[in-house]
C-alpha cells in the first residue's frame, strides 16, 4: 500500500461532508443563508456537480485492465489494532460511486423549485449522507466501512423523521431499529475476524477487507459468521422475511429520501454481500446457497403478487424494489449451485461463473437508475396533485404529454424491456440461474410477467383514460426544464446501457473475475 499523490477519493468523501457541516454551522450563526435559498441551492448544486465531475474523472482515469485496487489512500488510524484509514476502488466500487454521485445530483436538482422547511438542515443531511455513502463504497478497511455504514443511518433517520409524510416517526424508527439490529451482528462478526487476523501476526497487520480472504476459517466458524454478516446485509437489501421496514420507509420519506434510499442504500446490502459474504465465508455460502436462492425466488413471486394489489404509488414502487432485489441475491448465490454442475474446477470453468455476479451488479445499478427515476416521477405527480393514491389519478397524459412519454420509458425499463438497462441485469441473472438449474430460471422469469402486470396496469390507470377530476386539470402542468433534464438524462443512460452493456461489463470484468477466483482459491 502506498500514498497516492492525488487523494481524489478523500475529496469525494469529505468535500460534501465538510460543505454540509459548514452550512449547518453558518446557519446557526447568521440567517444570511437561510434567507437566500437560491444561494443555498446554488452552493449545493456546485458542490454536487464537483463531486459528479470527480466521479466522471475517476471513470475516465480508471484502469480497467486490472483487478487491483486503484486510487489507494492509506493513513494509520489505530495501528495497534490494525485499523487504518484506507480508501481505494475497483470496478465494483467505481460503478457504485458513480451511481451515488449521479443520483445525489438528481436529488438536488429535483428540489430546485421546492420550498422545504429548514432547507439548510435538509441539504446538509443530504450532503453528509453523500459523503458517507461514497465512503462506504470506497473504504478498504472493514472498520472504516463499518463506521461509514453506521454513520449513514443518522442523516437518513433525520430525513425520514423530519421531512417525511404523516407516519414519519414510526417509519424512521422502524428503519433505524431494523438496520441497527443487523449492524450489531455485523459488528460481532467483524470483531471476531479482527481477533483472528491479529492472531495471524502478519508482518503488517492490516485490517483490510482483502486480508479476510487469507484467513483460514473452519466450517463451523464460517457458518456462524455467515449468518452474522448475512443478517446485516439482508436487512439492507432487503431480503424476504426482513423486508417490512422498506415499504414504510419509502412511503413516508420525502421524494429525495426515497430516491436515495432506493437507488443507493439498498445497494449497500448487495455490495456488502459481494465484499464480506462471498469471498470471506465461501464454504458457508456454498452450503447455505439453496436457502438464499429459495428466499430470492420466493421474494420474486410472493412480492410480485403483493405488488399487484398496492393502492399507494410509492408503496407499489417500494414492493417492486424488493422483488427486483430478489434477483440480485439470486445472481450472487446461484454461482455456488452452478459450480456443482462441473465435474472438475479449473480457471476456465470458473470464468463462466462471473455471469451471475455481473448480472447481480448490473441489476443493482439498473435498479438504482430506474427506481430512482420512478420515485422522481412519483414526486412529480405528487407536487401537482398532492396524492399518492393511484385512484386519484386518471388521464394525466392529456395534460402532461412529455411526462407521459418519459414516464413510459422509465416504466418500460422497470419491466425489463430489451433495449433498457433493466433487461441486461435480469437477462444475465436469469441466464446464470438457467445454467445452474432450469427451474431457478423458471421461478425468476415470473418477475417479467408480474412486473408488466403491476407497472403497466398502473401506468394505464394513471396516465390514460378520461380525466376524471376536473379540479386536477388546473394544477396539472407539464414538466419544468429541470424535471425534463433529469428524466431525459436518466432515460438516455438507461437506453445507452441497454444497447451497449459491454461498456459497463468491461469495467466490472476483472474485479468480478478476481472475486470469483478468490472464492475458489485460485
Amino acid at each position, binding site marked *: 500500500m502506498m500514498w497516492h499523490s492525488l487523494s481524489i477519493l478523500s475529496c469525494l468523501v469529505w468535500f460534501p461532508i465538510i460543505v454540509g457541516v459548514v452550512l449547518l454551522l453558518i446557519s446557526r450563526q447568521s440567517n444570511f443563508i437561510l434567507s437566500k435559498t437560491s444561494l443555498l441551492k446554488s452552493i449545493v448544486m456546485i458542490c454536487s456537480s464537483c463531486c459528479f465531475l470527480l466521479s466522471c474523472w475517476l471513470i475516465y482515469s480508471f484502469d480497467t485492465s486490472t483487478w487491483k485496487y486503484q486510487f489507494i489512500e492509506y493513513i494509520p488510524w489505530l495501528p495497534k489494532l490494525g485499523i487504518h484509514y484506507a480508501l481505494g476502488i475497483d470496478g465494483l466500487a467505481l460503478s457504485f460511486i458513480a451511481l451515488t454521485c449521479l443520483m445525489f445530483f438528481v436529488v438536488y436538482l429535483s428540489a430546485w423549485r421546492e420550498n422545504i422547511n429548514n432547507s439548510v438542515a435538509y441539504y446538509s443531511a443530504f450532503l453528509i449522507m453523500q459523503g458517507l455513502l461514497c465512503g462506504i463504497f470506497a473504504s478498504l478497511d472493514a472498520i472504516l466501512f463499518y463506521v461509514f455504514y453506521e454513520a449513514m443511518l443518522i442523516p437518513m433517520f433525520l430525513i425520514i423523521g423530519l421531512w417525511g409524510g404523516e407516519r414519519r416517526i414510526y417509519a424512521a424508527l422502524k428503519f433505524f431499529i431494523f438496520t441497527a439490529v443487523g449492524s450489531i451482528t455485523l459488528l460481532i462478526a467483524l470483531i471476531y475476524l479482527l481477533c483472528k487476523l491479529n492472531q495471524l501476526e502478519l508482518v503488517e497487520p492490516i485490517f483490510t477487507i482483502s486480508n479476510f480472504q487469507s484467513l483460514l476459517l473452519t466450517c463451523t466458524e464460517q457458518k456462524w459468521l455467515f449468518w452474522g454478516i448475512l443478517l446485516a446485509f439482508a436487512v439492507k437489501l432487503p431480503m424476504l422475511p426482513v423486508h417490512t421496514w422498506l415499504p414504510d420507509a419509502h412511503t413516508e420519506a420525502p421524494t429525495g429520501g426515497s430516491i436515495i434510499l432506493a437507488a443507493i442504500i439498498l445497494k449497500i446490502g448487495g455490495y456488502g454481500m459481494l465484499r464480506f459474504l462471498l469471498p470471506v465465508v465461501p464454504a458457508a455460502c456454498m452450503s447455505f446457497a439453496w436457502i438464499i436462492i429459495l428466499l430470492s425466488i420466493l421474494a420474486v413471486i410472493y412480492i410480485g403478487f403483493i405488488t399487484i394489489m398496492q393502492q399507494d404509488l410509492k408503496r407499489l414502487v417500494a414492493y417492486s424494489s424488493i422483488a427486483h432485489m430478489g434477483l440480485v441475491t439470486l445472481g450472487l448465490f446461484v454461482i455456488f449451485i452452478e459450480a456443482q454442475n462441473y465435474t472438475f474446477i479449473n480457471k476456465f470453468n470458473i470464468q463462466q461463473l462471473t455471469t451471475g455476479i455481473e448480472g447481480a451488479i448490473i441489476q443493482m445499478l439498473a435498479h438504482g437508475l430506474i427506481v430512482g427515476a420512478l420515485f422522481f416521477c412519483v414526486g412529480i405527480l405528487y407536487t401537482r396533485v398532492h396524492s399518492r393514491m393511484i385512484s386519484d389519478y386518471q388521464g394525466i397524459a392529456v395534460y402532461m404529454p412529455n411526462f407521459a412519454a418519459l414516464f413510459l420509458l422509465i416504466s418500460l425499463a422497470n419491466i425489463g424491456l430489451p433495449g433498457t438497462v433493466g433487461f441486461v441485469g435480469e*437477462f444475465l441473472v436469469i441466464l446464470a440461474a438457467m445454467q445452474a438449474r432450469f427451474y431457478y430460471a423458471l421461478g425468476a422469469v415470473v418477475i417479467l410477467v408480474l412486473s408488466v402486470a403491476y407497472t403497466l396496469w398502473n401506468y394505464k390507470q394513471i396516465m390514460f383514460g378520461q380525466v376524471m377530476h376536473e379540479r386536477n386539470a388546473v394544477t396539472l402542468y407539464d414538466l419544468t426544464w429541470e424535471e425534463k433534464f433529469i428524466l431525459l438524462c436518466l432515460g438516455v443512460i438507461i437506453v445507452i446501457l441497454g444497447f451497449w452493456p459491454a461498456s459497463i461489463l468491461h469495467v466490472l470484468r476483472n474485479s468480478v473475475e478476481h472475486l470469483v477466483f478468490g472464492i475458489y482459491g485460485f
Partner: protein
Amino acid sequence: MFIIFTDTLKNIISLLLTMPLLGIVLPIVGNRLLSRQKVNYLIIALFSITFILACYLLEIMTIKERKAIDLTLYIWGNIANKNLAFGFFLDKTSAILLTVVSGISLLIHIYSMHYMRDEPSYIRFFNYIAFFTFAMLLLVVSNNLLQLFFAWEMVGLASYLLIGFWFTNDKAVKAAFKAFLINRISDVGLLLGILVVFYCFHSFNYVEIFTLIYNNHYLPNIMILPGIVLPAGMVIGILLLIGALGKSAQLPFHTWLPDSMAGPLPVSALIHAATMVTAGIFLIIRVMPIIELSSIALQAMIIIGIMTCIAMGLVAMVQYDLKQILAYSTISQLGFMLVALGYSAYSAALAHLTVHAIFKALLFLSAGVVIVAAGGVQDIRKLGGLRKKWPSIYGIMLVASLSAIGVPGLAGFYSKDLILNAVHQPAIYYLLIFSILITTIYTMRMLFMTFYSKNTAIVSIKPLPWYINVPLFVLAILSIVIGWVGNHTFMTALHGVISLPFLLIIIGCLVTWFYYGQPLVEDYSLSNVFKPIYVLLVNKYWFEEINHWLVKLSKLLGECCYKFVDLLIIEKIIINSAVTFTVRTANFIRNMQTGYLYHYLLIMVGGVILLLYWLLLRL
C-alpha cells in the same frame, strides 16, 4: 458479373434500417417547418427508399442466388469471455420478408395519410408506425436470437402503443395492456428457450448454432423441475413454440388479437394482420434446424395449428363486426401456416405468409374505406347494398376475398395448394380442407352481408384520393398475380379446378349465398337449429371468462399475501411480538427496581444466605 462486397451489403442493410429511424425523427422536425403535404412526401420518400433497398436485397438473394450471409455490427456485451455480437443475417427468407414488410408498410403509410388526416396527433401516429417498421425489419435481419428477442419485444411495444393510440378511450388502452401482458407471458417462453439454446450451444448466433447442429453437437438433458428430466431439443422446441404462439395469436394465447382491433384501422392492417403477427411463423422458419430436433414440438404445431384454424374460423362465422371477422380470420390463417410448419413445409408457410399479408392488408384497407363511408359503422348487419352504389370497392373486396378463399388462379390458391401438398396425414388433410370450407363461408358471408343485402346504413360515397386508391390498387393487383412466380403460372392452377377443395369452395359459396345473399331476414333459423354450437361460438369458447378468472385469482392471491402474510404474520405476529417482548422484559426489570429499602434488604439477605449455603455445601 459484378460482386457485391460484404461491407457494401452491411451498409445497405444499415441504411435500410436507418430510413424508418429517420421516419421517426424527421416528421417531428418537419412538422414545425413544412406543410402537411411536404411531410407526407418526406415520409413516402423515406419508406420508398427502404422498399427499394429491400427489393434490391431480394434480387441479390433470389435472382443472383447469393449464399446466406452473416454480418457483425457491434459487440453488445460479453458473457464469460464469449462476445455477443449484434449484426445482420441475410438469406432468402429474410430478403422476402424485408420486401413484404417494407412494401406493405409503405402502402399503409400512404393509406394512413388520408385515413388519419383529421387526427390531432397525426405525427405521433407516424412516429409509432415508423418505429414499428424499424423493429420489424430488425427482427427479420437479426443474426442472433438475443437480437431477435430485442426486436421481438420492440414490435410488441409498438403494438402496445398503437393499439392504445387513442389513449382516452378506455377500451383501447385495456386492449393494449392485454395484448402486452399476454404477449409477455409467451415471450417468457421464448426467453427461456433462447437461454436453453445458449446453455446447449454457448452461442446466440444462428450460423454458429446451425453449424453445431449439423455436426451433431451433443445435447444435454435438462431437469425442468426437480425429478423431471427431458432432452434439451424437446425443451427448446416447446419453449420457442410458446413464444411463437403468443405473437402469432394461436391457442391459447389468441385472445389479445380480436381486442387489438380497438386501435386505428391501418394499424390493424399493418401490425395485427399483415406483418407483426407473422413474426411467430417467421421465428419458427428462422430457427428451423433447432425446431427439427424435436418431433414433439412439430406435432404440437400441427395440433395447435389445426385447432386454431378451425376453432377460430368457426368463431368468425358468427361475428357481426367487420374488423372482428377479419381478426378471427387472421388467427385462423396463421393456424394454417403453423400446420405447414409442423410438416416442415417451411417454404409453403413462407409463401402463405406473404400472400396472406397482401390479401389481408387489402381486406382491412377496403373494409376501412367502407367503415369510413358508413360513418364508423362496423356492424355488417347495418351495412349492405353497397354493390350497386359503389362497384369499385366491391370489386376490390371481391378480389381480396376470392384470393383469401383460395380460388384457383388467384394468389391464395397457390400457397394453400403448397401447404395441402405437404400434409401427408389424411386426417389433418381433410381437416384442413374443412377449414377451407369454413374460410369460404365466413368470407363470403362478410362479403354478401356488406354488399348485397338491402338494409343500408347511411353511406356517404366520396371520390377517393390517390392516398387511398394507390395502396388498394397495388394490393389488388398483387392479390391476383403474386402467385404466378417461379414455375407457377395461371395455367398451373388448372388442376385446382377439379380438386376437392374447389368443390367445397363452390358449395360454401352457394350455401352462404342461400342464407346471406338475399335481403337479410334475421338468421335465427340457423342459430336455433344448432343452438349449443351457436352459444359456444358466440361466447368464443369462454376464453375471455377464463382469462378474467385467472386475473381475479392472481389479484386475490396478492391480497392474501399482502393482508395475511405480510401485514399479519410477519408484521403483527413476528415483529410486533419481538417488540412486545422487549417492552415487557424491560417493564419487568423496571418493576424490580421498586425503590423500597426493605425489598432490597430482603433480596440482599436472601442472596447472602444462598451464597453461604452454597459455600457450605462446597466445603
